[in-house]
C-alpha cells in the first residue's frame, strides 16, 4: 500500500466533491422494502381468503354425484390461480423481509413460517369478515377471464354433457319444467322431476342456479338437484345486465 494512501483518498473525495448520501434516501429504501412486504402479505391474504371462500363453496358432499371420483373433482375445481398468486406473494413477502436491515439474521424456515402465518391468518380473517365473497362478487362482475382463470367452479359447472349446468332461471313454466339461460346465453329447457322436492333454492325467474343431472338432448336438461350459486355471483349479474334483464333476486343477492 502506498504511504500516501489516506491523502490520495481524501484528495479524491475533495476533487470529486463527494459527500455521504443523505439519510432520507436510505430511510426511503428501507420503508419501501417494508411497504412492499406488507403489500405482498395483503395480496397473499386476499388470495387465501378467495381460496377458503372457493373451497367452502365447493360442494364436497356431492362430489360423487357430479364427477367420476374425488381425484377428478379436486383437479377440476382447485383454484390454481389463487394458489399460485398466494405462493408468489408469499415469496415476495419472504424476499422483502429477508432484505430488511436485519432480515438476513433469521433462517429461511423462520421467515417462510412468518410469511405463511401472516398471509394465512390475514386471509382467514378477511374470509370470516366476508371480504372473500365481496372480492369474488366484484371479480365475477368486472374481471376479464374470471370464468376461465380465476374460478374453476365456473368451468366445472358449465358442462352439460357431463351432467352439470349453470345459469339463470329465465322463466318458470307450469309443473316441473322451467327455462334457464346458461352462462353463454344459451337457453335450456330444464325438466325437474325428482329434484323438485329436494331443492335448496326456489325456482323463480331471475335466480342463478346450478343443476346436476344429465343432458337429454341439445337444449334439454334433466335435473336431479338444483343448487344455489355459491361463488361467481357477480358473473351472473353482468350476464343479466347484458341480456337486458334485472338483477336476479334470490340466493345471489343474499
Amino acid at each position, binding site marked *: *500500500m*502506498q504511504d500516501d*494512501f*489516506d491523502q*490520495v*483518498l*481524501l484528495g*479524491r*473525495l*475533495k476533487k470529486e466533491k*463527494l*459527500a*455521504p*448520501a*443523505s*439519510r432520507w*434516501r*436510505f430511510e426511503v429504501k428501507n420503508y419501501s422494502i417494508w411497504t412492499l412486504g406488507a403489500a405482498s402479505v395483503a395480496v397473499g391474504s386476499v388470495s387465501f381468503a378467495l381460496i377458503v371462500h372457493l373451497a367452502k363453496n365447493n360442494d364436497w358432499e356431492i362430489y360423487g354425484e357430479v364427477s367420476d371420483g374425488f381425484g377428478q373433482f379436486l383437479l377440476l375445481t382447485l383454484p390454481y390461480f389463487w394458489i399460485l398468486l398466494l405462493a408468489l406473494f408469499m415469496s415476495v413477502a419472504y424476499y422483502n423481509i429477508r432484505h430488511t*436491515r436485519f432480515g*438476513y*439474521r*433469521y*433462517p*429461511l424456515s423462520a421467515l417462510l413460517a412468518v410469511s405463511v402465518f401472516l398471509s394465512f391468518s390475514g386471509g382467514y380473517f378477511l374470509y370470516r369478515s366476508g371480504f372473500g365473497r365481496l372480492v369474488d362478487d366484484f371479480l365475477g362482475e368486472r374481471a376479464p377471464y374470471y370464468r376461465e382463470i380465476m374460478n374453476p367452479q365456473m368451468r366445472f359447472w358449465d358442462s352439460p354433457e357431463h351432467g352439470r349446468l349453470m345459469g339463470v332461471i329465465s322463466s318458470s313454466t307450469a309443473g316441473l319444467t322451467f327455462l334457464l339461460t346458461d352462462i353463454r346465453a344459451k337457453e335450456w329447457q330444464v325438466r325437474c322431476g325428482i329434484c323438485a322436492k329436494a331443492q335448496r333454492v326456489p325456482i323463480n325467474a331471475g335466480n342463478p342456479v346450478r343443476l346436476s343431472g344429465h343432458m337429454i338432448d341439445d337444449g334439454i336438461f334433466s335435473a336431479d338437484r338444483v343448487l344455489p350459486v355459491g361463488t361467481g355471483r357477480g358473473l351472473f349479474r353482468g350476464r343479466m345486465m347484458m341480456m337486458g334483464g334485472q338483477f336476479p333476486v334470490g340466493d345471489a343477492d343474499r
Partner: protein
Amino acid sequence: MEEKSDQELVALTLVNQDDFIYLVDRYKHKLARYVRRLTNVALADIDDILQDIFLKIYRNLNDYDQTMSFSSWAYRIAHNQVISNYRAIAARPQGNQVGLEDDGVGELVAEIDIEREMDEKLREQLIARTLARLKPKYREILVLKFFEEKSYEEISDITRLPAGTVASRLSGAKKEFAREFKKINKST
C-alpha cells in the same frame, strides 16, 4: 482521536470530511489484508480496490446502523465490492496464491484434518494454494473465521447470512479444504 470509538468517528466524519482519515487509518490495513486473502490479487492492485471500498463506505455512512459493529459493516462493503467486481478483479494480474501473510494457518490446521508433520513453509504454501482453488464462498468463510478471526455473528453480519447457514457453510468449507489439500499434497 485514537481513543474515540468507531461510532464517534463516523459521527465526526459526517460533520467534517477530513475526519474520515481516522477511520481509513484504522481499517485500511485490515481491509487490505482481507481483500488480498479473498482475491489473490497482486499487491500493486490492492490500492485501487481499497479506494473504491473506502469511497463506498464514505458515500454510505448515513446507512450505517449503530446497532451493528462498524467493523462488520466495513467488511460487508468490502465483501460486496469484491463480489460485484469479481470478474474484473479475477482478470487482473495475480500473485501465485492467496496472500496469507501470517497467523491463521495454525488455527486452520488445528481445526482441519490435514497432515501436521510437514515443513512449516511448505505447509503454508500448500494451504495458500488450496485456498486459492476453493469456491469463493468457501474461501471467504474460512478467511473470515481463521484469518480475520471473526465470530459467527460477525460473519453473519458481513455476509448477510443467518448464523445457522454460516455454521453449515463453514463445515462444508472445512471438508472441501481438507479434500483439496490432500489432492494438492499428493501431486507435489
